[in-house]
């Protein structure tokens, strides 16, 4: 019997030092039985995707509170495609205006969460994505 557990990379790209929220999210995913690889602050899109490849991660979650979400999510998605992991889930959260969310969604990036969203909704979203990709 397979002992597959969801492996999630959690990172903060760029020069954004606010990591309290992302740590809370990481803990919630651990509580939900996932294996969370926490990369921490000041990551580059390259370092994030490199880690995702080596960890064979199912999900990448980015926290962006700096306003640089468009550039960061786009670049990570591009690099994921190049690395052959374009089919894995790229999701995340931060202060991301609705218009920008639509733009990122059109690029194949998953749901983005913001202030006020329940932790459980993040867990449920990842689990539903995982259930949906199984044959």
């Amino acid at each position, binding site marked *: 019997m397979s002992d597959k*557990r969801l492996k999630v990379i959690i990172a903060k790209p760029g020069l954004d030092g606010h990591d309290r929220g992302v740590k809370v999210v990481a803990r919630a995913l651990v509580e939900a039985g996932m*294996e969370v690889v926490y*990369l921490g602050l000041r990551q580059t899109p390259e*370092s994030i995707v490199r*880690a995702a*490849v080596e*960890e064979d991660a199912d999900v990448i979650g980015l926290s962006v509170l700096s306003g640089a979400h468009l550039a960061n999510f786009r670049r990570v998605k591009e690099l994921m495609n190049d690395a052959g992991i374009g089919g894995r889930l790229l999701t995340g959260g931060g202060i991301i205006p609705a218009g920008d969310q639509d733009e990122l969604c059109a690029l194949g990036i998953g749901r983005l969460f913001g202030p006020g969203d329940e932790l459980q909704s993040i867990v449920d979203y990842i689990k539903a994505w995982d259930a949906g990709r199984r044959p």
Partner: protein
Amino acid sequence: MNPTDDAQFVLPPGLWEDFLSGGRLACARLISLIENEPFARTEIRDRLLPRPGGAVRIGVTGPPGVGKSTLTAALARRALDENHAVGIIAVDPTSPFTGGAFLGDRVRMHSLIGDPRVFIRSMAARDGRGGLSSAAPDAADILDAFGMDRIFIETLGVGQAELDVMTCADVLALVLQPGTGDAIQTLKAGIIETADLIIVNKTDMPGADDLLESLRFLFDSAGAAGKRNAPLLCSASAVEGRGLDEVWTALEGLIVRDRETGRLREKRRARLEGEIRTAISGSLWERYVALAGGTADIALLAERLSREGGSPYPFIRKECGRIKLVRDGRPELPPKKKE
């Protein structure tokens, strides 16, 4: 896991070829298969051919928070400077309640990312109770076949007796820090006896000299008793970057010494013997469960004994008495006649 039933697992098409041609994702996926699919291990193990020379496996162990990841990153940097390709397997604990894990060792290894000669893999310990994931030795084999020639295997934060890394590593470094107990602690048996190299980290904190002194006393007195080789002692402050070159030199010196004395080969032999024993006992257990039609009887007995007390051994003797090993259709050992 039943090694005779390897037909139950088939590698995804193209994965092995991608791995052989240096595919980083293929290497990562093989490690995941070992972690997740009980039958993948024998299939992958059968394909891993020994490389001439082969990687040296450096175990890094020690209590939580002493600086294992930071030191591993610093030593990996020095290995890269000497043109080694470096694999790192970093294990962190799995929650016994949720099965989840927070794997945070990469935070300390950021400086290594971007160098194509490094492959870092975090692993949750899952069912491993000896400080490692049970998949860690196989992951080291995979990184070895991938071309890494220095493989660091970092345990989760250990206490006194998580010893799996002792068999998994060729050379074992134990990291300690000042302020974690008096000289009595260093006299106790366990991990402290197994290290080839003891690194006292955080010498920027008070108490480092006391710890070094009590370690020297410990190994001088053990040496006087004429037992094992005393480990090398080093001190460092990883955050301040002090003492790290000395640690690296000591480590490489140990590798050269152990290669010359044949100790590296002996370690590999012992590791293979352990792997064979574990695989056979695992396979016999699987067969027993199949023969007994599951483990329900064991659960029932445990339930009854927990209520009423009593010894489990009458049941164990009866069950083990039912097992007859047969080779070529004949009993391997004729049953002993009662006198």
